[in-house]
């Protein structure tokens, strides 16, 4: 059963140095608050797993929290590059970053296999591309019934999955709606699960395209309003496309990036202070 607790306690108790950690949320509901807490607590040597590293892993990689990244699309959507990710891959700054790269379908199926307690998943794909040459976790496999050649990818079973949702009830059941991406599979594939939510409510209302993750599948629920900002929480606040655009010049420059993280992440107590801090500064510089 999930314990309703503070984010600081949840991260301190459930995330360890060297862990494989998946912070998921496909553009929607990206757990930025939890990522900042992991950075503030100085967690190290993490293997970060995420389909789209996004700004959330750009920040964690740039702060040296990761030794390895498992991913399928590493850009700033609609804007351009993730400069901290590129700096780590191209120049090893601040630390060399080992990468294991897949396609979206490969990653999605790896989570499904993990959630299903299977060793691997099977899909049509990767054949004829250069991905199997650079990614050892892609192997051909013959169908035992027809002999057809398909592709196998190993299950993902992170030590910790972290997701953000709109609501939890007081028993720790979790409700998310809108684009729910890969969060259910990520949570069910992981050994430990932290969920940050916009609010804890007495009872859920009906929502189109909603899913409920039962409390038994969750370890910690932490109320962090706006904890997915600058991504969004459907029904609460919109994606700050302006933030994603403003991140480009910050992420591009090592000193600007360090300064920004020191002022707005390391130098604050929690996410509400982070939001106040970036708003006070007005612009994103």
């Amino acid at each position, binding site marked *: 059963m999930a314990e309703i607790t503070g984010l600081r306690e949840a991260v301190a108790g459930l995330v360890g140095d060297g862990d494989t950690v998946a912070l998921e949320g*496909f*553009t*929607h509901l990206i757990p930025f608050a939890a990522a900042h807490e992991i950075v503030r607590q100085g967690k190290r040597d993490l293997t970060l797993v995420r*389909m*789209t590293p996004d700004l959330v892993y750009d920040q964690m990689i740039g702060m040296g929290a990761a030794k390895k990244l498992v*991913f*399928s*699309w*590493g*850009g700033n*959507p*609609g*804007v351009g*590059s*993730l400069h901290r*990710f*590129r700096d780590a891959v*191209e120049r090893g700054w601040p630390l060399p970053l080992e990468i294991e*790269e*897949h*396609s*979206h*379908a490969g990653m*999605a*199926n790896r*989570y499904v296999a993990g959630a299903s307690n299977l060793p691997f998943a099977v*899909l*049509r*794909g*990767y*054949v*004829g*591309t*250069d*991905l199997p040459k*650079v990614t050892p976790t892609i192997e051909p496999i013959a169908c035992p019934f027809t002999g*057809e050649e398909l592709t196998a990818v190993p299950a993902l079973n992170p030590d910790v999955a972290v997701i953000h949702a709109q609501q939890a009830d007081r028993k720790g059941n979790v409700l998310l709606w*809108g*684009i*729910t*991406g*890969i969060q*259910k*599979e990520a949570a069910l594939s992981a050994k430990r699960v932290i969920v940050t939510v916009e609010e804890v409510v007495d009872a859920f209302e009906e929502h189109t395209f909603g899913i409920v993750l039962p409390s038994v599948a969750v370890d910690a629920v932490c109320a962090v309003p706006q904890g997915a900002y600058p991504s*969004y929480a*459907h029904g609460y606040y*919109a*994606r*700050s*496309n*302006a*933030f*994603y*655009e*403003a991140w480009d010049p910050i992420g591009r420059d090592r000193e600007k990036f360090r300064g920004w993280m020191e002022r707005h992440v390391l130098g604050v107590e929690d996410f509400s202070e982070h939001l106040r801090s*970036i*708003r006070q500064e*007005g*612009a*994103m510089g």
Partner: protein
Amino acid sequence: MTEGEGRGYTADEMMTVAASRRLGDGTVCFVGIGIPSQAANLARLTHAPGCVLIYESGTIGAKPEVLPLSIGDGELAEHADSVVSVPEIFNYWLQAGRVDVGFLGAAQIDRFGNLNTTVVGSYEEPKVRLPGAGGAPEIAASAKEVFVVLRQSRRAFVEKLAFVTSVGHAEGGDSREGLGYTGGGPSVVITDLGILEPDPETRELTLVALHPGSTVEEAREATGWDLKVAENLGTTEPPGEGELRVLRDLKERTAAARKEKVG
């Protein structure tokens, strides 16, 4: 973006309009971000109101009022017919053959329509680390046909890809068929200069039409291989007033919606 010499539209607008025209009404279309998304939504708002736009975040039948910056903007879920999980969109929809057209961009393309979105230079020590595969390999594998949209230049149209991220017509001829893919591969490549289609036999991309004002020399100059040109080279119909108005309205609405303040 250069203004067409006194033509009243840009080369990018011509490319977007030409791409949108290829999308038939009622088509189920898997859309990438950028010009593919512009073109698909232009088609939906003009000649193809019944096309079903799918974005890889799991939105089916998306009808965005403004262009999304990412494939998962809330705008896409707001008016969608359905929203499904990411495994479902890739397995039950794309891999299962329910997608008619996949709409892709790329950093590099070769003569057989294979695409690179991974690295420029070597993989171990890349000159430029690009975002990577995303859903492109499976779109290229499983959509019944693939439309590719990208600006034509020697940097993009290369003799040899630095990395094969997504398979087009492989080594040409019937080589794609040997890979076990169920989709048909690229049927058209739309650029800012003209339109290329694979030769029915060799599957090599052949220039079949030029946009108004472009020349064969220009297209050859912007291609890193010896570009084949069709005998009956056509000319693209320039963007109509209606097409331009709808496209520009869409972009203005999008720009206005993005002006919100940070924080």
